[in-house]
Structures are given as structure tokens and as C-alpha cells.
């Protein structure tokens, strides 16, 4: 009922306010959030997962990949501009989005609603994990940009702790899920998959992507624990470097 016409009722300003047509910046911020999840964060995620699969080929191949990446121009700019800051924005605005929504899965236990909730929890897990991951492997211990040969060992050391391994597995699943469903959401919200059928079909694609990422991620993580390379990491860094330099063309070709 139109209480607005009735000054004495006093409930005109209670409840959810109407659309603020033409006001505010949430459209831009929200779209940036959604875009940043795909580019650059999603793109980097794919690159990172693929790079890590080099671990399957052994410490040398992995070191070569690390070295290659660090040979790219303007690495600090790339790191901060295309990875750290976007992730920070995506995470902070994501938390803000989470805080403003309210899950109601108890009464409406429907598929989309589960996905809604899962997207928030996987995002949180991914962010927490990424924070510790970046701190441990990028900002503490041996600086891998200078010593790419130590990279396999550094990761091996991290994963040797069974708790850490468990965290990695959970995080790989959460991150893959978050990205894949995020990609589906992106396509739906940006008007790329406008039909019900298109969304369903793209849903299959995203599910396949999630499965692929999870498989690759877990395989890569377990590769660091391969007994074959148990002593590999003790090789001298210099020897490693030479070897990897020699292998570089192959790595590039294999991509």
C-alpha cells in the first residue's frame, strides 16, 4: 500500500529502499570486480596452474619455467599491477558483497542458492590461502626470482607438512571452483550467455574447466612430493640454472 501518500503512517522509510536510478558507483565497482576475476586474475590463475604442471616433469623443468617467468620485462609492475592489486580489490570488494547479501539456504535449498553460498565460501578460502601462499613463497625465504633453481625445493618443503598439503588440496579445489563458477557468472551477467540453453551449455564447459583445473592442480601439487625427486632439490643451484637454460627452448615449444 502506498504509505508515501499517508504522512501519518510513518513507515515510508522503513524496509528496503527503492532503486537509486542514476545514482552511485556500485555498477562500475561491481563490474570491475567481476571483470578482475576473469582478467587479469583468472588469466593469471590459468597461467599459474599451467606453469605448475612443469613440476610434473621434474625440478629442472620447473626451475626453467620460474626463470622464464622472471625473465619477463617489468616483473614488479606485472606482479603488482596485474596480480596483487587486482586480487586485493577482488577480495575486499568480494567480502563487501558477501557482507551485504544474506544466504537463506535453510528454507530455499535450491541448486542456484547452493552455488551462491559456495561462491562466497570458496572465495574466502581462496583468498586466505592466496595470502599465505604469496607470503610464504614470494615474500619470505629464498627469493626465487634470484634463485629459480631453489623453487622446486621450496615448494617441496612447504608441502612436506601434511597439514600444509591438506590446505593446498582444499585451496586448489576452492580456487578452481570459484574461478570456474565465476566465469559462468561473468558470462551470464555480462550478457554473453543470455539464453537458458546457452547458460546450461556454458555450465557444462565451466564444470569441465573446474574438473580440469582441480586435476591439474592436485597432480602438480603431488608432483612436488614425488619420491623420484627426493634428492633432486639438493643439486647445486648453479648446475640447475645451466640445465634449465639449456632446456628453455623446449619449454617454450611445449607450451
Amino acid at each position, binding site marked *: 500500500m502506498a504509505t508515501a501518500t499517508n504522512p501519518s503512517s510513518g513507515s515510508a522509510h522503513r*524496509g528496503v529502499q527503492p532503486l537509486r536510478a542514476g545514482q552511485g558507483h556500485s555498477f562500475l565497482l561491481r563490474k570491475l570486480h567481476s571483470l578482475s576475476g576473469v582478467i587479469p586474475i583468472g588469466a593469471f590463475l590459468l597461467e599459474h596452474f599451467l606453469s605448475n604442471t612443469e613440476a610434473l616433469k621434474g625440478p629442472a623443468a620447473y626451475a626453467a619455467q620460474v626463470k622464464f617467468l622472471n625473465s619477463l620485462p617489468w616483473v614488479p609492475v606485472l606482479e603488482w599491477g596485474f596480480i596483487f592489486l587486482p586480487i586485493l580489490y577482488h577480495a575486499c570488494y568480494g567480502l563487501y558483497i558477501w557482507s551485504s547479501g544474506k544466504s537463506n539456504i535453510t528454507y530455499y535449498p*535450491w541448486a*542456484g542458492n547452493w552455488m551462491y553460498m559456495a561462491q562466497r565460501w570458496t572465495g574466502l578460502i581462496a583468498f586466505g590461502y592466496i595470502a599465505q601462499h604469496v607470503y610464504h613463497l614470494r615474500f619470505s625465504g629464498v627469493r626465487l626470482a634470484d634463485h629459480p633453481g631453489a623453487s622446486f625445493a621450496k615448494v617441496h618443503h612447504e608441502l612436506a607438512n601434511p597439514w600444509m598439503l591438506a590446505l593446498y588440496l582444499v585451496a586448489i579445489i576452492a580456487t578452481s571452483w570459484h574461478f570456474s563458477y565465476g566465469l559462468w557468472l561473468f558470462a551470464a*551477467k555480462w550478457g554473453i550467455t543470455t539464453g*537458458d540453453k546457452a547458460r546450461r551449455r556454458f555450465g557444462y564447459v565451466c564444470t569441465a574447466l573446474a574438473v580440469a583445473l582441480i586435476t591439474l592442480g592436485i597432480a602438480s601439487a603431488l608432483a612436488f612430493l614425488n619420491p623420484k625427486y627426493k634428492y633432486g632439490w639438493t643439486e647445486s643451484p648453479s648446475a640447475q640454472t645451466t640445465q634449465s637454460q639449456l632446456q628453455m627452448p623446449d619449454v617454450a615449444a611445449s607450451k
Partner: protein
Amino acid sequence: MAERTIKVEIKRQHDPDGNAVVEKFEIPYRPNMNVISVLMEIAARPVTVDGKETTPVTYESNCLEEICGSCSMLINGRARMACSALVDNLEQPLRLEPLSKFPVVRDLQVDRSVLFENLKRVQAWVPIDGSYDLGAGPRITPQVQEENYPLSNCISCCCCMEVCPQFNVATGFVGAATIAQVKLFNDHPTGKVLKEERLHAMMGDGGIQDCAYAQNCVVACPKELPLAQAISDVGRQVMLQAVKDIFTT
């Protein structure tokens, strides 16, 4: 043998600022009762299960055919229309509560005027020149009519908003019902003259960007409107408009 009864628990609140209390009723069972007829029965004998005299329950209703959109409420926790909620299909005790996202007026009656205000903000109408005789309207193919007709079936019950995890005071999200009307009028040959204005309205705070695709609206809508379809179509229109704005302003 004891006569068969229906047990009902109703969340009652005397006025917008009052405390909510639950009153329990037990009324004689008859076959094919719906929730409205339970409330009518209580009105004719407003006595709780403990024998305490109380007042008839306040609730909104009108057509009782699920076409006017008045009687939405939470029935056993879920938003739905009371007229089409058959007691025989519901778990007892029946739990009746007002919609949770709208200010309570009294008992089961809430204030849903925000939807009508939103329809104004997006100019959900066809801006005709006048009501005088200007001849026939634009030709519309049966295919377009079949696409638009379902959207025009929205009964403004607000179930889609109630079940949406994003519709709340913090977001001020506009909700699926209004977005569906934006699509309806943007797709009309005459209505589209306001398309750009509607899309700009949709980009405001609380606009379409706040949808998070939980798609509860699609399941909850009693008239089965193609809401996800409407939201994604309007989403595309808004994005195209945003891109156009970047290059033309």
C-alpha cells in the same frame, strides 16, 4: 474418536514497532482447505488453542485465485501465495509468518510499496501520445507476443524479492520483478523509446549489478516468469549501453 483438526502457529505483531509473538490455533479440519480459509475460520472464532480470546489475524488478500498478488506470506518458512497453499499438502503445525524483507504493518500484512516505487523509477510503461483515437497499434509478430506475454503476467506478489539473498536493506537491490518489466517495455516497439533511460536507471545503486544469480526467484515465482532469462537479457542491454556511453559521452 477425536475430531480431525488443523494446528496453526501464527507470528503476530500488533503494529510496526510491536514485539512479535506466536499464537497457536487449532481449528476443525475440512477437506480442500487452503491457508486463506484457515485464516477466515480463525476470524469467525478468534480463540487460541489455550482458550484465550484474541483478534482476527490481519493479512492482505483479494482475488484468492493467485492473480492479484495480495496474499504472499511465509508458509512453513517459504514465501508463497496463501490462496494456492493447500492445507492437505502442508506439514503441520502450519507456521504462518509475514514476509521477512518488508516492513510489517500488522500480523501477516507487510508494506510492499517499494515495488511500485521501483516500477516508477524504471518508467515501466509505454509512453503513448494520448488516449484519443490514433488508429491501430504497431504490428507485433506472434513470436514476440509469446516472448513478452509471460513477463506481463507478473502479479507483483514480491515472492522473487523475498527469496533473493541479495534483496535487503544493505543492498537496496531492485529485485527480479522490476528487471523483468524493464525487459518487457524495452522490447515493445513503442516502449523502447525510453530504453536508454531505463537502462541508465538500472545502472544506479541497487540496480541489476546486485543480482548474484542464486536464481531463487525463478523457483519461487508462482507465475513461473522467465526471470533468469529477463535478467540476463537486461544485463546484456545494460552492458551494451555502458559501452556505448563510454564511446559517445
